[in-house]
């Protein structure tokens, strides 16, 4: 029991330390209706290879996850995630971008990157969470990923062979995590800022 507790504390401390070591980046933060609206750019996710793949005509996915954390703690006060399915239209010039249920057509890759990786005024966390942490230091942590395979799709593509042994299902779960993770990831965090009183 003591060992398990010690391991948990170590894990939390390691995660908190890991997040505190993320590179800093300029964030625009505005407070509206008791919640924070953040603006930042993760366009550097799109390096040469990512741009080439986005132009391949195959559907690719860009996912941005923003979390708001209390300084010195591993506790995440709130999280917001959005993803773009980007397909270069080989039939007509341009790109088809699907965000949630909405689809739109953009003419250039730069427009696509601005649409998906340049975040403007995104609400992160609900007012109730901030209400409880007034006057405390917080920071935003961003994880931008290129082409992670969704859990559902990953489960469909990588399946264990039918059989009663436990090796297959356990191994497949681990393999899925490795195989379906993003092909490129960029992580960064904001400076510390104080929740308004």
């Amino acid at each position, binding site marked *: 029991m003591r060992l398990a507790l010690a391991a948990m504390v170590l894990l939390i401390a390691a995660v908190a330390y890991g997040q505190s070591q993320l590179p800093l980046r300029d964030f625009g933060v505005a407070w509206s209706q008791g919640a924070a609206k953040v603006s930042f750019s993760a366009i550097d996710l799109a390096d040469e290879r990512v741009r080439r793949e986005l132009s*391949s*005509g*195959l*559907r690719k996915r860009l996912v941005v996850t923003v979390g708001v954390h209390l300084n010195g703690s591993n506790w995440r006060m709130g999280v917001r995630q959005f993803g773009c399915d980007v*397909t270069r239209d*080989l*039939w*007509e010039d341009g790109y088809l971008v699907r965000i949630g249920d909405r689809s739109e057509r953009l003419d250039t890759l730069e427009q696509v990157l601005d649409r998906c990786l340049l975040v403007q005024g995104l609400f992160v966390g609900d007012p109730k969470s901030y209400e409880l942490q007034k006057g405390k230091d917080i920071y935003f942590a961003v994880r931008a990923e290129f*082409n992670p*395979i969704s859990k559902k*799709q990953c489960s469909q*593509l*990588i399946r264990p062979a039918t059989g009663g042994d*436990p*090796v297959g299902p*356990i*191994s497949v779960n*681990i*393999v899925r995590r*490795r*195989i*379906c993770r993003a092909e490129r990831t960029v992580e960064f965090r904001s400076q510390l800022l104080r929740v308004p009183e």
Partner: protein
Amino acid sequence: MSRFERKILFAIGLSVFLALGGSIFLAQGALRDVYAVGVNERFGTELVHGVEARQSHLMALRTGSDQVADAVVWAVEAEVAKRGEKSALEAVLQNLLERYEVVQGIRVVNAGDEVLAEVARPLDSSSEPLRSTVRKRETQLGAGKVRVAVEVAVPERYFERLQEAGEVADVYSRLQRQGASVSDVYAWVFGVLAFLVIVAAFLIGAIVSRRVTRRVTDLAEASRKVGAGDLTVSLPTGAEDEVAELTKAFNQMVRDLRDSRTRIEYLQRIGAWQDFARRLAHEIKNPLTPIQLAAQEMDETYTGEDKAYQEKLAHARAIIEEEVATLRRLVGEFSAFAKLPQADLSPSDLCELVHGIENSIPAVLEDLGEGAARAVEVRLSCATEPIAVRMDPMMLKRCVDNILRNAIQAASREHPHGGGLVLLRAYQGERRAFVEVRDNGPGIDEENWERVFDPYYTTKAEGTGLGLAIVKKVVLEHGGEVRLDRAPEGGARFSIELPLMESR
């Protein structure tokens, strides 16, 4: 945990974990080989080629659609120039629509956005979904410019299949990149699960082996106790195996040791009593004759006239002579007890002994008085087969005789008017022979069952208390046991147990 247990567990653990390590190593190699058969560069390249082919196909369709649009415009220009009138435009477009399958519709509008002609392929709800696009061209038609919009379409499935092929190629390429790590994951998951199974098996093995080793350590501990002189130790035998056999042998050895010690102690005690009896007999016997002679002389040499005194002397002489006679008898018995020889064992038949006793029963009854003969019935029985034992027939007969006399006396006292019963039988058990004498007399209280064999312990007024002590001594010298308990008839039961010749 004892060293023995640690060694057994170490041996189990070593063999099991060496096997596990070896199997993980082999499984890792085998999995990598198997993985490489299914996921390799060749298949990955072919999949990528498949995706590229679909992309090229779509690009070719796109180029084709542009060419079709150009062809439509040229055809419109040519036909109108040839016929010289725009009124024929509708028929020309219809003709083009029929000629090019990918064309879904054509519209020609003039500079004022007035539709000059328009044709469209009728909608067919049963046909597969199409993805269409409009290729726009401008051309000079007669005196004015016109815009020609050609709608071309290809099946939607071409695009879907490209995406599907792309996804599969993507996953395959990831599997290919992670080849070594995927097979390692399988090997390690197998290893961890096998480890857990082995740990469980190891624990079960430890528990089972502990049961065996515990029995061995118990034996060692019991041996130490026996060595320290504790002969009350007895171990449970447990399951039927070699250790149980060893435990049984150990228990038997302790029982034999205990019996031997009891026998030796008893014989030592009897020896001490014999020494005491010899001295007592010697010390008492010597003055008896002078006492008796002195009394006789006093009586015979009195010459006085005092009648009363003369009678007193005669009375005193009679008392002295009677008591001296009693003392002589006691001295005789003590002396006989002291001189009791060691049993001289030789192969004999126990039934012969019983038959010999049978012959002497009338004499015994006569010796005990007529009352006993009338009141007590004596029954004897023995097996028809000889019961071979090593014995001293004379001494053992004396013992059985002694017990038989006691039994007859007890039965006749309890049943003075008849109905007394004494049974004497000899029989053979698995490894022992038995002589049993039982009666329907008053019996002996249980608290005295052990004491009756002590020298000088007696419940009879005229007894010396040596008879049963001699019986026990003789039986012990035969390597046997004599026991007393209650007979089914209600009286006492004496059982003499002797080892059979085969078991010696």
